[in-house]
């Protein structure tokens, strides 16, 4: 007979490369679809969101300053580590979403595939989205996309892993840093993904994961003057028009809510949505 006592995991936030509890001390119950208790997840407050933005802002220069090739390597590394922990993800998805083992396996496959697909874009998207513009004079005129800065994301609410990955990965590709509010009902996979990110050479602060109520936290991120862009893909059930209005006050780039199984489908547009175009002139020769 084994004397082993199961040690349940405390699901905490992921801010600045560490796993703190919410400063408010709050937690909320995460249950299976049948209402059985699964775990207590941290319920982030506006001050956790504030701290996450500070961490994300501090990480912008390092992550956006890394070479595109290096960013691609780091993101690919995330996919490698994800692959190694797939059993844990599948198990969590089965319990969280109440789906079959094969459906959970499909979801993890899809999440890893999408992550690798976006990782590949890191050193390629600029060639597609950038341009050498024709000008009337002896100049090179080059437009290149650059990351916009800190992106706040409301992750898709009806998916444990693939929705989060589909919103998170494209924002990271160009060098943005991210504060993401995980699915309120399925937050456990988000924190397990954070454990993957924390051990995948991703610099601290590049991704910050908040769990809790999007309705409570999203308005603070939408109006935050130090957030440069807002991805409302999972905000369909919120007062998202108000969030867009708040975001407009500080000229944020905004992606609207999407519903259904095809929400946040892989697309180059999700990468370029969070970039700014820089155009430079350079002489072709000495005049």
């Amino acid at each position: 007979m084994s004397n082993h006592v199961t040690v349940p995991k405390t699901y905490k936030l992921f801010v600045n490369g560490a796993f703190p509890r919410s400063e408010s001390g709050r937690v909320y119950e995460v249950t299976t679809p049948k209402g059985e208790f699964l775990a207590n997840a941290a319920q982030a407050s506006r001050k956790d969101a504030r701290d996450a933005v500070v961490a994300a802002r501090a990480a912008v220069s390092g992550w956006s300053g890394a070479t595109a090739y290096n960013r691609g390597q780091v993101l690919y590394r995330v996919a490698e580590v994800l692959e190694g922990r797939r059993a844990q993800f599948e198990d969590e998805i089965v319990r969280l979403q109440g789906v079959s083992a094969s459906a959970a396996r499909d979801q993890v496959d899809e999440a890893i595939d999408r992550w690798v697909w976006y990782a590949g874009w890191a050193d390629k998207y600029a060639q597609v989205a950038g341009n050498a513009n024709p000008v009337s004079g002896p100049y090179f005129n080059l437009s290149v996309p650059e990351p916009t800065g800190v992106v706040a994301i409301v992750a898709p609410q009806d998916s444990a892993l693939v929705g989060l990955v589909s919103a998170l990965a494209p924002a990271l590709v160009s060098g943005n840093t991210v504060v993401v509010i995980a699915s309120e009902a399925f937050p456990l996979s988000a924190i397990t993904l954070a454990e993957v990110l924390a051990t995948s050479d991703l610099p601290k602060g590049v991704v910050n994961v908040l769990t809790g109520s999007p309705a409570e936290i999203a308005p603070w991120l939408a109006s935050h003057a130090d957030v440069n862009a807002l991805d409302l893909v999972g905000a369909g059930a919120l007062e998202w028009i108000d969030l867009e209005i708040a975001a407009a006050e500080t000229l944020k780039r905004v992606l609207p809510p999407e519903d259904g199984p095809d929400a946040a489908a892989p697309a180059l547009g999700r990468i370029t949505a969070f970039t700014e175009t820089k155009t430079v002139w350079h002489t072709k020769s000495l005049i």
Partner: protein
Amino acid sequence: MTIDRAVSPAQRALEVLGDDLTESTLKRYLDGIPGVDAVGLEQRAAALGTRSIKTTSKAWALDRIIELIDLTTLEGADTPGKVRSLVAKALVPDAGDPSTPRVAAVCVYGDMVPYAVEALGTAHSAGTDEGVNVAAVATAFPSGRASLAVKLADTADAVAAGADEIDMVIDRGAFLSGRYGLVFDEIVAVKEACRRADGSFAHLKVILETGELNTYDNVRRASWLSILAGGDFIKTSTGKVSPAATLPVTLLMLEVVRDWNRLTGEKIGVKPAGGIRSSKDAIKYLVTVAETVGEEWLQPHLFRFGASSLLNDVLLQRQKLRTGHYSGADYVTID
């Protein structure tokens, strides 16, 4: 055997120590000051740091912090242009909100004083209670390693250029080796060098550089010594040594100031400097001042923050209070 040298007859020391003012009476007095209860001091400081200051109290505190700031640039790379932009920031800290108060003073190296005075123009207090002061660091700041003649020339030069306040450093080497008389005499001499042509004095802030004094007992002794020798303010640090200002050290210095006030009725100022970067930290200092020496000390002539990056954080907090949403570094100036 120690040589019992008479030290300079500073008025405060004469009144407290008596007419027989020698190095050994000074040393006996300072060594007779009771030791500091370090654990109690740190607990007290930590307890004062837990007060919750919100809404209208916070708004009041943020404005008061700005009014108490010595906006500082003390870099080898300082230029007249950088000093002019510092002064512009001192006069209009937040261009988006005209209700923002001005800072107490700008603090620069001695050779930058003329540029600061010129940039302030009519906003320069020039000895009056209105306007922004110019503070200059002097006496071979930050190390203090120069001959007395050089230190005095440094001081007199800054005063002649229009500095209203002189931030001097004590000779930590002499203090730590027990030569209190030497430290005392230097402060007295620098105080004399602060005399303007019309007989008035520039305010003298004495920097103890607590990060180099090693013990709380030494900080307490150095505070007493600086006050006895005629300092108008005692200041924690140059900002060039770590640790710079800490809450326990500032609390300790405030306690000395409180004791001096009880002894003589005189009010001495305190200036924590270096390492105070957030509004949250600064509010802890305000609480400590109010609880130790009283709210009366929360005025520019009795309490200052030596800071450069603190101001921007306070402005961000003010914007948060005004607009209801979090602000960002894009909405304050880059210094």
